[in-house]
């Protein structure tokens, strides 16, 4: 069990002012069996009208509309969480079926299917998923800039390199080929940098989090922000607006253990 301080900062800067900006933010760590949020403060700019809700995956959202012109859009979330990796996130098996089916981002093509056929073997679901993670780690290279947020699992696999989102998507695609329920998790881990992503595999009534980017089980140093079928379901900042021109997004995440 660890106690962590976290801070998430996002700023979207527009070349020209925007108006009628509708947004939905998904950057608020939830309470679940493994993590408890002790304190939390949220600031959003511009805050003209906003409201909260929980989406179909249980993710907390803040949505709203900023109708007057603004040059940037920012969200700051700071808080403290207690993470206990020994607690289990449980669910009824028959309700997890929807995580067994492909989405646009996780549909395997010939590349992933060929890889799957080469590495598949029989075993318990969790062991199989860990085996896939091992093999993926051996055959995939971490490299920033090779892929982007809309790169599919298959495209990333064929490139042979990518970032945490791509690792997670490929692992999900492999698990779904095996008919294992598997979901995408967006989150943060200790240190400074960007957000992180991993996957959870369902086995025997429990969701097991695996971090394919580091080829290890998720432990007390990770904070979950949201989960869904793929990265699209976990979009942190979604918006439509008028104007804007070029946009620049900065994200800064800091997570430190409180000793």
């Amino acid at each position, binding site marked *: 069990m660890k106690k962590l301080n976290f801070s998430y900062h996002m700023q979207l800067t527009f070349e020209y002012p925007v108006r009628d900006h*509708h947004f939905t933010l998904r950057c608020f760590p939830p309470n679940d069996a493994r993590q408890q949020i002790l304190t939390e403060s949220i600031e959003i700019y511009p805050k003209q009208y906003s409201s909260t809700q929980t989406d179909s995956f249980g993710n907390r959202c803040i949505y709203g509309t900023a109708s007057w012109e603004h040059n940037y859009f920012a969200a700051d979330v700071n808080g403290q969480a207690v993470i206990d990796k020994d607690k289990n996130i449980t669910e009824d098996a028959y309700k997890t079926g929807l995580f067994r089916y492909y989405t646009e981002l996780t549909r395997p093509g010939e590349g992933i299917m060929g890889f799957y056929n080469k590495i598949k073997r029989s075993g318990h679901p969790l062991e199989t998923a860990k085996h896939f993670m091992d093999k993926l780690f051996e055959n995939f290279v971490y490299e920033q800039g090779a892929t982007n947020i809309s790169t599919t699992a298959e495209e990333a696999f064929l490139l042979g390199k990518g970032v945490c989102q791509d690792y997670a998507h490929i692992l999900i695609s492999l698990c779904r080929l095996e008919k294992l329920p598997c979901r995408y998790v967006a989150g943060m881990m200790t240190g400074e940098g960007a957000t992180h992503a991993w996957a959870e595999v369902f086995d025997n009534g429990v969701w097991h989090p695996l971090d394919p980017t580091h080829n290890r089980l998720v432990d007390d140093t990770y904070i979950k922000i949201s989960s869904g079928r793929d990265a699209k379901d976990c979009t942190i900042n979604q918006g*439509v607006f008028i104007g804007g021109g070029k946009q620049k997004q900065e994200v800064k995440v800091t997570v430190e253990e409180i000793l």
Partner: protein
Amino acid sequence: MAADGLYKYSEQINELLARYGVKFGIYKNNVFKEQLFPFDTIPRIIEKAEFDCLERGLKQRVTALNEFIKDIYSDKKIIRDGVVPEEFVYSGSGYLVQCEGVCPPKGVYTHISGIDLVQGEDKNWYILEDNLRIPSGASYPMIARDICRRSSPATFEKYHIEDNRNYAKLLRRTMDYVNTGGHTVILSPGRYNAAYFEHSYLAEQTGAHLVTGSELTVENDRLYFIDYSGKKEQVGAVYRRISDEYLDPMNFNKESVIGIPHIYDIYRKGNVALINAPGNGVADDKGIYYFVPKMVKYYLNEEPILQNAPTYLPYYEKDMKYVLDNIDTLVLKDVAEAGGYGVVFGSKMTKTEKEEFIALLKREPRRFIAQEVIDFLDIDIYDDGEIVPRKADLRAFVLMADEPLVWKSGLTRFSRDPDSFIVNSSQGGGFKDTWVLS
């Protein structure tokens, strides 16, 4: 018999229908064209006792469909109990993950259903498909009846026919039942939509405002209609005639410019009714159709009153074998298509087409259903002054208010081509009034 009085007004009635704008817009090769929807004056006549039976069966079917949708987006008991394989739910085009855990006002998902039936040579009625998303067509027999009554009042004195002009009242009752407080509006994508006539006619008949997306806005978790002076009035029910994916760019297709940002967020909170409920297409997928009689038994513990056309699911090995052995006598339907597209008759395929189709079927068994070709009971139409038999179906309308209501009429569509079984308006068919005798 009954057409005698009406036939001589045929030309006049069709002229009036055209003048009122009874048209069907279609896109062909990317060009928008409005075509007339030809009306045949010979009505389809259904006896009271026969319709009473249809009515009971339709109420039962739509009640079960509504229960199914509610279950799928919450407890999923029917999956847990192995009655419907999850694959048919989650890989169907109608399943929307955004609807998980969302309960619409009063638990109604199927406010307006268009159930397509055909009558066989054996006089039995068979369900061909359930249309739950945005079924259109009620306005055509409504206005045709109105014009027929004016053209030949004597005909309607002579026969005891249920008045079908009450559809607007039934619809209003359905919309009012789920209204969360405020105005009722009909949301149309605009005049280039195939069913724009219907949108405007139903608005006029029910007293609802006809609006487009740009006239609605979400503020403080409520939906408002912005009137011509800029004043905002709260809206409690939206009979939306735009499909789920275009409803809200923040929750569905983000490219949509005809939707209303955040309308789905406030619907999720119960602050507005969307008619029909988003995601209800999970129950009208052609693959799910096979399971509807099973749903009736599962949710209502009753025997289904209305039968499906005999259907096979190649997903099941036994059915696959039957389909391969009997392909020449079957009609094959792609579950992802609608509007009469993606339908092929085994008997009409060439040898190569059949081989290609079988290969595809084996690769994607879930994508197809196969049905016995029903010998439709032909009904008479006037074609250039001659009475000729043609294939026809019946779209019955079921509305779900505090109880299911069946409209005592319906849209009878027929194929003008003597060799065709496909009656869809988008493929050039015509329509008739449907008289239910009282």
